[in-house]
């Protein structure tokens, strides 16, 4: 069922990409030109319009990875495994970008590039989990075992996400607390509007990237399978008749 949903959604790939581009261009205009500087942070607040959406999208991508991994272990659908693999790569990229932009923001604001703060450390751990996931996908030879081990790792690693989210509530951290929570919104509309537009843009971009990357992984496997079959044909043809060999009927 979910494979069918993925295939149907991929028809709208171009529209999603276009909408993402439109939102991002609007968000860049609002964030860099139209919005005023912050009273305390000054112009540096503009980094928030790219850093916060990157971090949110990284966590959203991990959420997709988590859901797809559970689904894969349940149904063993290779298309869903492709989706999980694609989400992991994108999440790793967004996590790294969020760490870099956060570090650039921290230098003028906290006067340091890095500090051992709970939010920063838990987010860096998330990056390491994703890096481990992607490494595992290259180390295991058997594709079925590779997908199974990776899914288990992704599910176990999901335990870090609540820690990332609530770290600013659970511990006294240098990182500012949640600006949007059940208690309400603690930021002005001048900051909220560009932030929302950029967040929407990055979410749509993630959707687009997920479609493209899932397609990429699917086609890579398809081609590998085809080449594998062709190689085995050539091997059989070169080595001549063998005991117990059957004519190939692969399609």
């Amino acid at each position, binding site marked *: 069922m979910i494979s069918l949903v993925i295939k149907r959604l991929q028809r709208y790939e171009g529209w999603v990409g276009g909408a993402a581009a439109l939102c991002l261009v609007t968000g860049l205009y609002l964030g*860099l030109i139209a919005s005023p500087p912050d009273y305390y942070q*000054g*112009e540096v607040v503009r*980094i928030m319009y790219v850093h916060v959406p990157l971090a949110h999208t990284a966590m959203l991508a991990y959420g997709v990875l988590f859901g797809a991994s559970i689904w894969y272990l349940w149904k063993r659908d290779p298309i869903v495994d492709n989706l999980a693999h694609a989400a992991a790569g994108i999440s790793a990229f967004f996590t790294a970008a969020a760490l870099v932009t956060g570090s650039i923001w921290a230098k003028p604001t906290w006067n340091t590039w890095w500090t051992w703060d709970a939010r920063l450390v838990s987010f860096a751990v998330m990056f390491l989990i994703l890096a481990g996931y992607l490494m595992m996908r290259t180390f295991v030879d058997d594709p079925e075992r590779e997908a199974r081990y990776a899914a288990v790792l992704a599910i176990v690693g999901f335990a870090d996400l609540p820690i990332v989210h609530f770290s600013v509530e659970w511990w006294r951290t240098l990182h500012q607390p949640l600006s949007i929570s059940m208690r309400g919104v603690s930021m002005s509309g001048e900051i909220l509007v560009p932030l929302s537009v950029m967040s929407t843009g990055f979410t749509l971009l993630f959707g687009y*990237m997920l479609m493209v990357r899932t397609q990429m992984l699917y086609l890579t496997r398809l*081609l590998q399978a085809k080449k594998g079959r062709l190689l085995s044909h050539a091997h059989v043809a070169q080595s*001549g008749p063998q005991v117990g060999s059957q004519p*190939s*009927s692969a399609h």
Partner: protein
Amino acid sequence: MTRLYVRWSVILVAGIVLAALASQYHARHLAALTPETVVATSPTGTAIRVIGMVQGGTLEGEVATGSLRFQLGGAHDVLPVQYQGPPPENLRELKTLVVIGRWIPETRTFVAHDLGLVANYGFVMAAYLAALIPLGLFVFGMERRVSLLYRDIKESKIYEPEASVHVDGT
């Protein structure tokens, strides 16, 4: 493949145009001169922005009235500033800030009508470039790979039925 390269060329050109416009906007509205440059070049005409530190013991006047005098220090030179504008919230001695106004060469005084915070545009630009350039390359790389895979699949005729191999040696 051609469509892919055309689309990304358009994105690249749009990016370059936006960067050029942003650079012009920065030069016209956001870039600040140093007190040394103002003293050396004596710019007249349009309002300019000057960045420096309010020298200790030089702040005179009432903040509440918005009429103040102070000296703005750079690396070597000091600029006498006469501020007349809205009551400033961020003005205090030993604070680095941006003053906006005109240089009067006859009196060698800078008449300011507004104050601004230190911009730190370098950090803002670095963060955006560090995020958007790799993001663009990442998406382009994926799209290009998909196009190449489609081409390879087409060339290898993957959707055509494969010829069966006879292994009986006859």
